[in-house]
């Protein structure tokens, strides 16, 4: 029991560690303007490292991720807006470079897929529910057929 508690405590502690602690060293980026720093942090969390499949450039130790952080830092310091930085990256690395893909024919399934699944699920449930309700009452013909079956079946067993 005490083992379990200790394990639990450890897990809680681990969960409380800031998520960037295992990622890249961001201390080198100094800002005098807190708004720019906030924008920089937001951007590096949203921009995807092209080299490392599924990491934001904030979390990756890949040299390319560092270069892209440097680039983001430079642009933010020069006063670029969020959209300008994102456009810059997407123009060079494609939609892959941003964790929020634009709505296009190719990405439509990402945006509408969950909604479509919800609708299909609701349809299936309503159809099943309707069928159950319909089949719970027998028509007069069905009742007669059932009664006949009940009478005849013991005879068949012998």
């Amino acid at each position, binding site marked *: 029991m005490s083992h379990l508690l200790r394990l639990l405590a450890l897990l809680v502690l681990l969960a409380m560690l800031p998520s960037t602690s295992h990622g890249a060293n961001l201390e080198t980026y100094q800002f005098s303007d807190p708004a720019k720093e906030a924008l920089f942090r937001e951007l590096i969390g949203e921009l995807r490292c*092209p*080299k490392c*499949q599924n990491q934001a450039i904030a979390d990756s130790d890949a*040299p*390319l991720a560092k*270069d*892209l952080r440097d*680039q983001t830092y430079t642009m933010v310091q020069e006063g670029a807006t969020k959209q300008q930085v994102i456009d810059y990256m*997407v*123009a*060079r*690395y*494609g*939609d*892959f470079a941003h964790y929020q893909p634009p709505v296009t024919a190719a990405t439509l399934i990402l945006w509408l897929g969950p909604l479509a699944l919800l609708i*299909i699920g609701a349809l*299936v449930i309503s*159809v*099943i529910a*309707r*069928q159950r309700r*319909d089949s719970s009452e027998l028509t007069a013909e069905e009742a007669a057929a059932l009664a006949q079956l009940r009478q005849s079946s013991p005879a068949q067993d012998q």
Partner: protein
Amino acid sequence: MTEQTSASWRWAVLALPLLAFLLLVGFLLRGLFSDPTELSSALVGKPVPTFTVPDIYDTSVIHSEQALRGRPMLLNVWATWCPTCRAEHEYLNQLAAQGVYIVGLNYKDDSRSKAVDWLNTLGDPYQLNLFDESGRVAIEFGVYGAPETFVIDAAGRIRYRHVGDVNERVWQQVIGPMYSELMADYNGTNISMEPQS
């Protein structure tokens, strides 16, 4: 609801998950054979980005995007820390010997002397050697590794981007035909440098 429509509803409900399952199987099966590291290049069809970069042999000489205009060429991104670059280097030497015009972009190498050593010992297939120490030029090209090879037309427009080594197969099937076609156009129209919009 009549019995008949109820039955067809039943079939539809039964068939729907199967259909969804088959679609999913098809989708995932395709995923098995696709290479997730291969990104579509956002720059294909666009003019080469603007840049300035020193020459690898003489850093006082500065090249710009102008060096990538005027004739069809390949731009090969390489570095000495990249084993695949070593693997493709001999093939690039062969292409250069056949008269293929290749520009080299040395990407974030350990040191300039190491890169120059490589060219001196393994041979230099490049008509021009760009030295991108910081990787800034590579970012302009959307490079995310080495080797990468771009096919650039005479108007300085990027036509194709190949990720990975250029070898016999890649050259015969993809890059070679494209390059030959560009060369035929180039020789046919004879040095027309008008960029088409």
